[in-house]
């Protein structure tokens, strides 16, 4: 009996949104080579929320920058939406970022001489939206993020938490399939951090895939999955669930407060 062997498909049907294979990054400087990332394999599915934790210098930000094409890897592969992207030119990466990858940074990086509205609208236009569509998205995002009344204000006049919400609106304006966030609460006080985290939680609940780099455990605990990066390698990769029912959480309070 002859078994039917299917031929391998010519186009890779990858269910994952993002796939890193054996990724490395070596920085060469005066003091010699620093191996910042030493072989990371990682898969992120569409609509997954993954947090990356680890001590300073563990390579968290370098990893995120490589995923977003801001830093080329030394070796290894990056697959995005079934397409290999690690060899793309800077210009191609720029197009990919505008259309498919949103970035949120610790220090907001908003365009200071444009209004809040224009910051968001420009990102939508760069992402390929028509003028009318860009305006509609801007209005929708700003009202959803409670920033409608600040539309005509320059970002510098806003409080840190508000600026970060604008930065999130801008990152989402291009309707990215992946949102990358690098310490988005790192520069915010506790209550503004909570606002930004709740916002990320809501965005994720709508099916947005997020990779979040953070040292803030509260931020990381919002994610479905937490990666611990240590010395440029994945030391742990765990699905995090809340303990079942409020009594267990309350038992934690007892243990901690007692």
């Amino acid at each position: 009996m002859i078994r039917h062997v299917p031929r391998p498909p010519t186009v890779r049907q990858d269910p994952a949104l993002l796939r890193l294979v054996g990724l490395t990054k070596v920085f060469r400087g005066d003091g010699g080579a620093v191996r910042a990332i030493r072989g990371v394999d990682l898969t992120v599915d569409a609509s997954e929320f993954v947090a990356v934790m680890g001590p300073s210098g563990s390579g968290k930000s370098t990893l995120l920058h490589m995923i977003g094409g801001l830093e080329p890897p030394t070796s290894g592969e990056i697959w995005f939406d079934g397409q290999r992207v690690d060899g793309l030119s800077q210009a191609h990466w720029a197009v990919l970022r505008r259309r498919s990858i949103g970035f949120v940074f610790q220090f907001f990086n908003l365009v200071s001489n444009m209004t809040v509205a224009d910051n968001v609208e420009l990102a939508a236009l760069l992402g390929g939206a028509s003028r009318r569509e860009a305006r509609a998205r801007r209005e929708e995002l700003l009202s959803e993020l409670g920033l409608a009344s600040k539309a005509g204000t320059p970002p510098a006049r806003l409080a840190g938490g508000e600026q970060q919400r604008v930065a999130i609106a801008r990152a989402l304006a291009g309707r990215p399939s992946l949102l990358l966030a690098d310490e988005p609460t790192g520069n915010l006080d506790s209550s503004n951090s909570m606002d930004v985290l709740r916002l990320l939680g809501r965005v994720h609940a709508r099916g947005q895939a997020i990779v979040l780099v953070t040292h803030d455990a509260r931020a990381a605990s919002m994610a479905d999955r937490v990666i611990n990066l240590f010395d440029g390698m994945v030391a742990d990769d765990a699905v995090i669930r809340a303990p079942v029912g409020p009594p267990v959480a309350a038992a934690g309070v007892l243990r901690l407060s007692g």
Partner: protein
Amino acid sequence: MEGYEHVARQCRPRDRPPTGSAFAVGVCQYVLEALRPQRIYAGRGPVVRLPLLALLAKEPAHGYELKNLLEQTFGEAYPSPNIGQIYVTLQRLERDGLVSSQDVVQTTRPNKRVYELTPAGRDALAAWIEDPSDGPRVRDDFFMKLVLSPLAGATDRLALINRQRRHYLSLMRGLSGLADAHEGGSRTARLLIEGAVLHLQADLDWLQRCQEELL
């Protein structure tokens, strides 16, 4: 790490702490303390005992009233002790002379036992309130496991740290849910949760330090 193991190995429960650096002695005392099971749970005592005294300072009450008052004051964030724990605690307080009780006859229901604060109880309560509370925990159950695990033949410390981190993160997720549920609710409950979140963050930071130093 070798230093700790060396100390831990020397620390059998009956031994005196070996002479050496204050740090080593401190670690040794910590290990000895932690090895005594009653010590691990001792911290729970005051958590129920003294709030009961405080509630009784206002007016005499019976067990169920105290349970309800505790729940009203601290909300969901406070683990409500079951009625059995309340009665056991009240009996111990009475044995220690801090409360006294008398049966109140009820015609349609079984008699109830009403507790009230004694002068000694009032003094104990005042002393508790005036005393500064304990600072950082010097006993930590997880750290004990981390230090002693090689003696027990469990050598994969990374796995131990990872399991603990997952557990903390899961607790953190639970607390975030609890915080959302109390958004705009009782201030006592919100502050209690925030305190637990901050402690947990510190525990996670410390876990990271253990990983950096010991692995």
